[in-house]
Structures are given as structure tokens and as C-alpha cells.
């Protein structure tokens, strides 16, 4: 058995764990960049009403005298066809996109994880078969098409879009957790706990689940960006956030008509989208680094 030379520590205190994790995270400068980017984006999203110069830009507001103005001092990102400040709209668009991600994750992650835990723990029984076959069915449906179908039945708004994405998103978590649970289940420390007499709930949530946590968290951070992209694609085709609410995708979509003359209407939201996705991805990489166990 590998006996690592790390096996001693001096005056160990509880919060040293946090320090150690920070050390592992911060070794790669890109993770720090991701963290800073995400913090800035979150700050902008939360405090949008207080920091934007033209809060009316997200309401039904028109001011044709200011329309289609290129980037300048009073309108750093220019204005759109209705004369609304692009910068303000972009910042508010962060809000909408992030909200969409969080709601989708809030629904799909607990659902997927719990189903995956149960299916994995009862591997081989009818419980496993039912859960995993349902997962397979949902996985085989193309997400965009299902979203379009749902949105054509139900009223077209942001909530419907979020539900449409959630219906399919949980399956990935279920599969991922299922894989980990089936491999962890056979380890001796789990059997040990069973032999001591621990109940099933305890074993599922306090012994097995912590072993899946690191990959779940990593996937969540990567998913934030992915969901925003899917939401943006849906906005591009007319679903998702409805006007006048701005969403990064819808801003890009409405701006394409005016390329290349009024380039600022598409380019700035586009860059913002890239930055959001990239920021969360880098952060996710950094979090993944924390879960790596170091040995010599």
C-alpha cells in the first residue's frame, strides 16, 4: 500500500482543510481568473438595478432619437434599434441567463442525484431497471426538439423554457451518480458500515453521496455555462425570454439582422456570453483540481 510521506501533520486544525483546498485550487492561475470572472458576473447580476446608468432600457421604452448609436461615452456599448442602452441590457441579460441556469439546476440536480443514488444502490433489482430505463428514454430525446415541442403547447415564456430544459437535464446527473455509486458500493468501507448496522438512509446520504460530491459540483459549474448556451439557442429561435426582457441569446439574435453596419448590437452580447461560459468553465476546472488526491 502506498504510504505517502504526507502522513504527518502538525497541530492540525479543522479549518486547515479549507486552506489546503485553496492551495490546490490556486495553483493554476486560470482557476483564479475563472473565480474572479464569476464573482464579477454575479456581482453585476445581483446589483444590476443599482449600477446601471439607464435602468429604463429593459422596460418598454423607446427613444428613436438615440437609436442605433455606436459606442460612445454615454452609451459604452451603443444603443439598439429602440434607443435602449446596450450596456444596461447586457448587464440585465446576465441576470436572466444566470437565473435560468440556477432554476434549471435547482430542479434537475436533486432529482438526478437522488434517482442515481437509489438506482445505483439497488443495482440489479427492479428499482434499478425502472429508473435507468426511464433515464435512457429521456436521454434519447433531442433536447432542442423537446423544448420546441413543449414551448409550442404551453405559453411561451421564460418559465416554460426552464422547465423544458430541466426535464431533460436531470438524466445526466442520474447517469453520472449511478456510475459512481455502483463502484463505491462495493468498497469495504461501505460494507463495513452496513455490518456495523447503519441504516440505508445513512449509507446513501452520508457515506456514498460524499464520494460523488466532487464530480457533482464540478459538473454543476460546467453546466451553468452549458445551460446558458442552450437557453441562448432557444432564444435565438424565439423561445426563452420574451421581449422586452433581455437575454443574451435574444440580444444576439435581434442584432444579427443589422450586421455588419450596427455590429455593436450583436458583438457585445456575444462577447459577454463567451466570458460567462468561459468563466464558469475555468472555475469548474479549478474546483475539479481540489478533488484530486495527491500522493507521492
Amino acid at each position, binding site marked *: 500500500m502506498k504510504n505517502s510521506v504526507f502522513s504527518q501533520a502538525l497541530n492540525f*486544525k479543522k479549518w486547515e482543510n479549507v486552506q489546503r483546498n485553496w492551495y490546490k485550487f490556486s495553483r493554476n492561475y486560470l482557476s483564479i481568473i475563472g473565480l474572479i470572472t464569476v464573482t464579477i458576473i454575479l456581482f453585476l447580476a445581483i446589483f444590476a438595478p443599482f449600477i446601471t446608468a439607464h435602468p429604463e432600457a429593459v422596460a418598454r421604452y423607446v427613444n428613436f432619437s438615440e437609436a442605433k448609436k455606436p459606442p460612445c461615452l454615454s452609451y459604452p456599448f451603443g444603443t439598439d434599434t429602440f434607443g435602449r442602452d446596450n450596456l444596461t441590457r447586457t448587464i440585465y441579460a446576465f441576470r436572466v441567463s444566470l437565473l435560468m441556469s440556477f432554476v434549471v439546476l435547482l430542479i434537475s440536480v436533486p432529482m438526478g442525484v437522488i434517482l442515481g443514488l437509489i438506482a445505483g444502490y439497488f443495482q440489479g433489482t427492479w428499482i434499478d431497471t425502472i429508473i435507468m430505463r426511464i433515464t435512457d428514454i429521456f436521454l434519447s430525446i433531442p433536447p432542442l426538439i423537446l423544448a420546441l415541442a413543449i414551448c409550442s403547447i404551453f405559453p411561451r415564456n421564460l418559465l416554460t423554457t426552464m422547465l423544458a430544459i430541466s426535464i431533460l437535464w436531470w438524466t445526466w446527473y442520474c447517469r453520472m451518480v449511478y456510475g459512481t455509486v455502483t463502484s463505491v458500493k462495493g468498497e469495504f468501507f461501505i460494507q463495513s458500515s452496513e*455490518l456495523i448496522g*447503519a441504516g440505508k438512509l445513512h449509507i446513501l446520504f452520508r457515506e456514498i453521496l*460524499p464520494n460523488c460530491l466532487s464530480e457533482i459540483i464540478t459538473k454543476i459549474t460546467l453546466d451553468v455555462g452549458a445551460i446558458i448556451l442552450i437557453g441562448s439557442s432557444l432564444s435565438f429561435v424565439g423561445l426563452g425570454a420574451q421581449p422586452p426582457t433581455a437575454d443574451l441569446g435574444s440580444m444576439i439574435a435581434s442584432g444579427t439582422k443589422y450586421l455588419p453596419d450596427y455590429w455593436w448590437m450583436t458583438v457585445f452580447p456575444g462577447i459577454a456570453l463567451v466570458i460567462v461560459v468561459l468563466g464558469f468553465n475555468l472555475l469548474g476546472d479549478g474546483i475539479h483540481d481540489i478533488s484530486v488526491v495527491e500522493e507521492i
Partner: protein
Amino acid sequence: MLVGSLKKVGTKLINNNILTVKNLKKYFVTQQGIVKAVNDIDFSVKEGETFGLVGESGSGKSTVAYSIVGLYKPTGGEITYRNQDISNESKKRSKELKKEIQIVSQDPGTSLNPMRSIYQILELPIQVHTLFKNRKERTQRIKKLLKMVELPEDYIYKYPQMVGGGERQMVSIARALATNPSLVLLDEPTSALDVSIQAKIINMLIQFQKDFNLSYLFITHDLSLMRNVASSVAIMYLGKICENAKTSEFFRNPLHPYTLMLLSSIPVLFEEEEKFKPKKVKSTGEIPSPVNIPPGCSFHSRCLEKMDICSKVDPVMGEVTKGHFVRCHLYN
């Protein structure tokens, strides 16, 4: 002293045997065929003593331990603990019973959950069997357990991967002793550890046995260690016991050819030990796969004293001298 319920399961012991195993069989069905991991085994463990089980890989010794503790349901035969039949799986056993029989496993790397702190690992058996009511008492008990295995108190904040293999094994032992058991199964507890840590742990185990009147089923492949630890020894080969005797008799007069082969393969350090080893037997051949057990006596393919009958008829266990049992045609 360990605190806890002193109500023990079962009644007064017969012959002072706390554990009796009779005709134990455990077969596994695999793709390659039926693996007869444990194939008709008898032995008993006396209260307060250490019974040693020796064998190489494929012998089934770990399977015996797992069957006793309830990980596997025996395919046949019976296991009796304190005169009570316990031959079923862990989920069908009473909580009282789970408190009484504990197991310490071989690999310190996988016996502790890497995502739980040592505090949480030691807390589990105490919580499950509700030995203490409030958190403060539980913490005290855990710190006492750590002190018992000579680990510093602030280890409760650590995680298993932060401590060395020997220390992890000590945590496993502390966990096993947390519920005040009567029978502890030790499945190669020190095989993965260095000699000096092994000495420490073995001495600790012997001390605990005296202090708490524990009975041990000690499994290992190291005969030198067995000599110093066990009061009775049994050798297993491919699911069957070859020889079973009290330790002193066993080493004074080893009979079975496999025993002789094992003894002569041990690398020893001192002249007196070298003289002690049987000289003639050189180890030959590979251990057959448990799926393809040779007919007749399972050892005949490697035995230097092979006779005609050995490849046809499986020998029966016979008592050669009082208390010394051998399963070999040479002595029947």
C-alpha cells in the same frame, strides 16, 4: 474499561467455545463455473483465546471470516455463536449480534471512507447502537478510544488519507472495539504494514484481549506471526482445512505436506529458526485456480509424498494425536 451494555446474546458456553463452525460451505457461481471458496470446514474458537487461520490466496480464509460476520450467507453448514445459530446474512441479524461480532479488514486503504473524518467514522458504531445519549459523551468516548490505540486526540479532525497505513489500521481497530464486542475477526490486519508497526499493533491487540476478554479469529499467511499470537492454528488450502492443532503441538510436530511446504518457504532471520524449519520440502508448482480444483486431495498436484490414492479419493479429517487433526492419506 469499555462502557456499554453487558447483556450478551445467547447462553452459557459449551466447552468454553464462543464460536463453532460446522460443515461450513460457501460456493459462488461465476462465469467460469462454481467456485467452492469454502468447502466443508469445522473449527471452534474458545472464549478469550486466539484461533489462527493460515492460508495463501484462494484458500478461502477471508470468505470464512466474511461468512461469520454476515457479509455472505453460507451455502451450507452452520455457524454457532454462543450456542445460537447465526448462519444468515447481516441484514437478517439482530442489532445485538452486530454489536458482538466485529471485523478488521486487511487493506487500510479501503476500510475507511475517505470522505468521512475519523470522528465521524468512530461515531457511527456508537450512534447506531445508541450507547451514549448526547454528543458531548460521544466525543469523550471517541477520544478515549483514540487514546486506547495510542493516537493523539486531534486526529478526530483528520481524514484517512492524511494518516499513514498503520494509523489507519489502528482507527479500524478502535472502530471495531467501539461497541464492546466479544468476538473480533482480524483478516490479515498487519499484512500491509511494516514490521515495527506490526509489532506495536499486535502487542496492542494482545493487551486488549487480556483487558476485555476478547476472542480473536486471526487470519494471516505469516506463520511466524501466528506462532506468537495464536493458541490454536488451522491451515487452509483451496477451501478445506488441512491441519488443525494447538500452536505448540503444531510447530513441534507439523504433519501435513502442505504445512511442511509452507514452513520451509518462510524466510527467517536467525540460525535457530533456520534449524527449526523442515529442510526437505522445496515448494513447487502453482496454486490451482479455485474453479478447477484437482480431483481427490486438492493438494496432490504439488505434493512430494503423493500416493496413488491421493488423486482419486479426498482424505477425511482424522485425529492423529489428541487435539491434532490432519486431513491426509498418509495418516489415515
